[in-house]
């Protein structure tokens, strides 16, 4: 079957040891002096700059002002811009998402923060039926330039109702653009692009990445820096297998790629960055080169992002370039358990990706 989804396993000691080894090798070769920035600061600086640049940009959500946001992404912005542009709301997701849609229709550029995307389900009618469709229904006369943002996907130790990926949900809907950044560069460039974009954008952050530092260049730090929405990034070139992932699953894929490199398997890792539009050209170009495809995501397998990618490959010329049926590595098809060890087992781990790669390459 082409749609084998992951078998959950935990990291074994062997793979841990080789991870450490390859990490050390890498840090000596790469950007030793580069500046670092956390994803949180990348998002924060993007918000700050876009607010400074455009008076119409404002933030609303629960706890975003005085409290600096539940995950401190809006830190300092209320102090700088005041009540008029950083607005604490009552606890009514449907309400403030609707207010944001109205404000966007009236010419403002709201950034609507959800404490987590799990709570955006209370507001999903406003996001899909109103924000996503108004431009179309008004025959192109009413724009809804709005960014819905907040943490998405599995966090740590917060159980079934706080730990799920909405990437596939929103990517399903025409009218929305959907972004799922991985590094600080992604976060900065894409959030700035999302705020400037005339269409509604769903911007899916990852709580566990907020505090992670990534190297960042001067170009990325420039106030004019934006990344194109709908363009993927090749995080690591390789010639044997294409791995397509988004958000935190890119990290898992890169670690697996390092481990596989030690065994002579060179993996090309594609960081999708945007889930809708999906950069299919980058994926096919890579598949044509490597002849093997694995998708990795933390979300569930059924109707997931991997399912979409595999289906599109199946429908395209690239299908004939596959040497083996493609494989999806996904979260386990159950609600997220709370207990730590089970939580780890429910998410794709490096060992799962390595196993899928070995299966494709027919090595033990």
């Amino acid at each position, binding site marked *: 079957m082409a749609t084998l989804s992951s*078998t*959950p*396993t*935990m990291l*074994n*000691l*062997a793979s841990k040891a080789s991870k450490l080894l390859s990490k050390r090798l890498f840090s000596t070769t790469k950007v030793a002096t580069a500046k670092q920035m956390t994803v949180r600061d990348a998002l924060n600086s993007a918000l700050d700059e876009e607010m400074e640049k455009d008076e119409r940009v404002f933030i609303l959500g*629960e*706890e975003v002002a*005085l*409290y600096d946001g*539940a995950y401190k992404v809006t830190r300092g912005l209320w102090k700088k811009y005041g009540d008029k542009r950083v607005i*604490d709301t*009552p*606890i*009514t*997701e*449907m*309400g403030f998402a609707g207010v944001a849609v109205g404000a966007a229709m009236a010419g403002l550029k709201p950034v609507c923060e959800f404490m987590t995307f*799990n*709570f955006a*389900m*209370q507001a999903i009618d406003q996001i899909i039926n109103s924000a996503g469709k108004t431009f179309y229904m008004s025959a192109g006369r009413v724009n809804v330039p709005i960014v819905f943002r907040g943490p998405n996907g599995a966090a*740590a*130790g*917060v*159980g*079934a*109702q*706080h730990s799920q990926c909405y990437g596939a949900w929103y990517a399903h809907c025409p009218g929305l653009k959907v972004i799922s950044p991985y590094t600080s560069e992604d976060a900065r460039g894409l959030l700035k692009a999302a705020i400037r974009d005339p269409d509604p954008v769903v911007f899916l952050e990852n709580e566990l990445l907020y505090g992670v530092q990534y190297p960042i260049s001067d170009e990325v730090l420039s106030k004019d820096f934006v990344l194109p929405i709908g363009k993927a990034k090749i995080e690591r070139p390789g010639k044997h297998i294409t791995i397509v992932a988004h958000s935190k699953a890119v990290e898992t894929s890169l670690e697996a790629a390092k481990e596989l490199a030690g065994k002579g398997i060179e993996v090309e890792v594609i960081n999708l960055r945007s889930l809708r539009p999906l950069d299919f050209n980058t994926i096919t170009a890579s598949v044509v080169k490597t002849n093997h495809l694995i998708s990795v995501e933390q979300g569930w397998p059924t109707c997931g992002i991997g399912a979409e990618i595999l289906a599109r490959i199946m429908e395209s010329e690239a299908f004939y370039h596959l040497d083996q049926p493609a494989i999806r590595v996904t979260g*386990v*098809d*159950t*609600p997220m*358990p*709370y*207990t*730590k*060890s*089970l939580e780890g*087992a*429910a998410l794709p781990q490096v060992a799962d990706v390595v196993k899928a790669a070995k299966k494709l390459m027919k090595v033990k």
Partner: protein
Amino acid sequence: MALSKNVCVLFKRCFQNKLSFKYLSTHSQPPIFPGAKAEWTQKLEFTGTHSYSPLPIYQVLDQQGQIIDASEDPKLNSNILEKMYKDMTLLNVLDKILYESQRQGRISFYMTNYGEEAAHIGSAAALTTNDVVYGQYREVGVLLWRGFTLPELMNQCYGNAEDKGKGRQMPVHYGSKNLNFVTISSPLTTQMPQAAGAAYALKGKNRVVICYFGEGAASEGDAHAALNFAATLDCPVIFFCRNNGYAISTPANEQYRGDGIGGRGPGYGINTLRVDGNDPLAVYNATRKAKEYAITESKPVLIEAMTYRVGHHSTSDDSSAYRSKEEVDHWSTNQNPVNRFRMYLQNNNLWNDELEKKWLAEARKNVISAFEEAEKRPKPNWSEMFKDVYETMPDYLVKQMESMQKHVEQYKEHYPVKNYSK
């Protein structure tokens, strides 16, 4: 139905008596709109918060623990009073130890109940275990009152093999089928329409549903839906708002502009009581009256218990960022519900320093031993991850489980298998 019948009758009367209809001026006929029963007026005036005085706050005990109006004394027997006090203080001991254990990294999350002891215990004591509870998350006192044991609490917080929830939920998301306490749900306010639904199902069965919620949660659309449905479907449910002044950092005055949550009740056609949530006897009387009314009339009641959240919102919060120490101190000392109740008991010779000392030592010992036991217990078997997604496990999950089984079997020396129950 009833309304439209009235309208027909009125029209019929008018048409039968054509003459009088012709000569009557409109405003001498009462309005017959189907949407509201009201009178005509010729004065153009806003109706607003100035038109009514705020709902008064019902009290039984003063700050010194004296009954203010003897006719309001619920005359509870001494066993009940003692259990109330013991559960309030046990709640404090429990909170202290579990909060600290989170700080030490032994459990992942916790929420304390400080300041709201009287609201929990006063309302729980007025109901029976047969009445169904839908909670928000800060209502552990209700569970203690109903007999949820310390080991049960601790097993949940540890998500160990003995946890009835199989370690699938975050700490404090308790539930007990035996005690009719519905498992806590993380997304706010989902419990409110569900409580109305449960009450609808229990109509005429001499049981009520009580649904706890915060003044912050009351801003969700679900709160509106719940109140309107309970009113229109005549559901025997008590909506019990814990108005503790804060929703994480958001103070109540940014949450709403009307007269609290209670002020909304009459707008929905729901009988409402506002009560001093720090006075256990007042909360008891209010809840008992609400239950009687809900059952005899088969109608909802809204209770707003005015109180104060003394602790941080949760272990993820530091409330010193948004409120002063003086403010918190005022509530935890001058307005402390546990102290007030203790004074009441002491005034009536039902409690003294010696009993207090003995009880607190016992409570601490029990909490710590339950805690240590829970910490030692193994985690649920890993295969639990695949169970209960559906009544019957589908083939693809069976396959995944078997594949994991094989894997763990093969590499068992790499896994902490011994920490998991067999």
